[in-house]
């Protein structure tokens, strides 16, 4: 049976999918290609946080503490910042050595294939370096409380929702109120005119990588906190990410958030009915249905 708990679980899963889908949709609309590396940004973000926590505990000889009812303490927030910086740098480095040259030659398909190759390389580097086994930020448990009758939520999960909402709001303000945000929106509308106006398209591209990489890192750490850290965690999220971005309307940030929540809900509501082994098929069905019925997505504009 589907219950209110499934709805809450779906929203929690959807929140992390949203963070990832925002990056996919920004890359698509501003850099103009479907970036298959995005899932691996999520994974590398999680492992960067894991490495930072490892250094911290080795240096202090202690654990990562516990903040109130949470399973983690302040060191995890520090690790989150390290992960954000490291993943943004990884995205910038990939742009510098790979994507920028292909962008100049103006071949979107080459960019997609290159991102596929980069994704493969990043993923297997992690398997090679870390092994395939799951890792955890902490062995502590965040205790679930009954928030509403029949709805149990852990404090960790509330942090996931709150942080996601705060980041979406921050991105909204960035896009609407700042010169960089205006330049990003303008680039998604007309990249040639942006150059005529005096804006360096490479600078906009770099900002897009930093924002997309940072949000991916946060998504990775949040999955790591609520589930586990594995080399394939981001790759397995890739289909939900694209399903969410396309369901919301590719290019639309608000669409990506909405799409993420809906894909998360669809997965969580389908699992009690069809069984957990078909979880991955849900995103695929959503994707096919959107492409057949409303290819421009919920908030997208028709071509």
């Amino acid at each position: 049976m589907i219950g209110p708990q499934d709805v809450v679980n779906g929203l929690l899963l959807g929140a992390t999918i949203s963070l990832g889908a925002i990056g996919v949709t920004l890359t698509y609309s501003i850099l103009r290609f479907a970036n298959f590396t995005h899932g691996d940004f999520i994974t590398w973000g999680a492992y960067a946080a894991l490495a930072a926590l490892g250094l911290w505990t080795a240096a202090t000889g202690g654990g990562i503490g516990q903040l109130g009812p949470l399973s983690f303490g302040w060191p995890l927030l520090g690790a989150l910042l390290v992960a954000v910086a490291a993943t943004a740098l990884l995205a910038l480095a990939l742009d510098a050595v790979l994507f920028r040259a292909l962008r100049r030659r103006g071949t979107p398909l080459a960019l997609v294939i290159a991102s596929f190759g980069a994704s493969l390389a990043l993923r297997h580097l992690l398997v090679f370096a870390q092994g395939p086994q799951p890792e955890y930020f902490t062995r502590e448990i965040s205790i679930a409380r009954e928030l509403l009758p029949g709805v149990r939520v852990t404090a960790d999960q509330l942090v996931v929702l709150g942080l996601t909402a705060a980041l979406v709001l921050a991105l909204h303000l960035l896009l609407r109120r700042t010169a960089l945000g205006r330049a990003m929106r303008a680039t998604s509308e007309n990249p040639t005119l942006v150059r005529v106006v005096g804006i360096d398209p490479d600078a906009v591209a770099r900002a897009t990588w930093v924002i997309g990489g940072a949000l991916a890192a946060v998504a990775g750490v949040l999955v790591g906190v609520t589930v586990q850290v594995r080399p394939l965690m981001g790759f397995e999220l890739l289909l939900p990410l694209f399903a969410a971005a396309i369901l919301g309307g590719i290019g639309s940030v608000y669409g990506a958030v909405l799409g993420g929540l809906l894909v998360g809900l669809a997965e969580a509501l389908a699992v009690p009915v069809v069984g957990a082994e078909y979880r991955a098929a849900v995103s695929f069905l959503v994707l096919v249905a959107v492409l057949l019925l409303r290819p421009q997505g919920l908030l997208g504009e028709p071509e």
Partner: protein
Amino acid sequence: MTGSEPALEARAVVAGYEPGLPIVQGASLAVRAGEIVALLGPNGAGKSTLVRAMAGLVAISSGQVRLDGLDITGWPAHRMAVAGLAFVPQTENVFARMTVEENLDLAGFRLDRAARRARARDAYELFPDLGRQRRLAAGRLSGGQRQMLAIARALVLRPRVLMLDEPSAGLAPRLVGLVLATLREVRALGVSILMVEQNVRAALAVADRAYVLAEGRERLEGSAAGLAGDPEVARLYLGAGATAPSSAGPA
């Protein structure tokens, strides 16, 4: 204002979209400070390609572009705008999904907030219609107002020279004169102007001087008044270029 150097100059520019297939084939022209210069010529003469190349949007394979004597050949387009060479493309020259105000702010993204507000006020003074609709998405403006917005946005960075690619294209005849007359007001601000035009009569009515381009090179140059009565201009427009083999002529 330093006397000898033109505000904008093209020297034997060769440019095109594909290597080995130049559309502009050694064109030269000059815009002196304070001048309005029209660039005329039949379809396919390379007028648009020449101004787009000068704006940094089309690759130049040889020749030079100079702004106030400074060699800016091959600079990326975004540096042109900052260096003082503004460009208004023919189509899709406003950000349709963004408001009038955001369009102006985009051009002033290097300026601080107070300076951006001041530049926007100047634009609304020159084009009161825009001021009344500053919160409207640019895509909902009329054709004439869009053209005004594109010009206003090009002026935000206080350029030395403004290049326009067919500012009258797609406008109702009543508006053509209005938009072109605006260019006189722009010139009064100290901006020299180079405009590509298909509408020869309207362009010569506003311009001081004009060049006629054919097959990628300038064929004629003269005062607007002189060219307006020149039979050679009429002949070039009939498509029978001076030395053109008519292999690809219309049947």
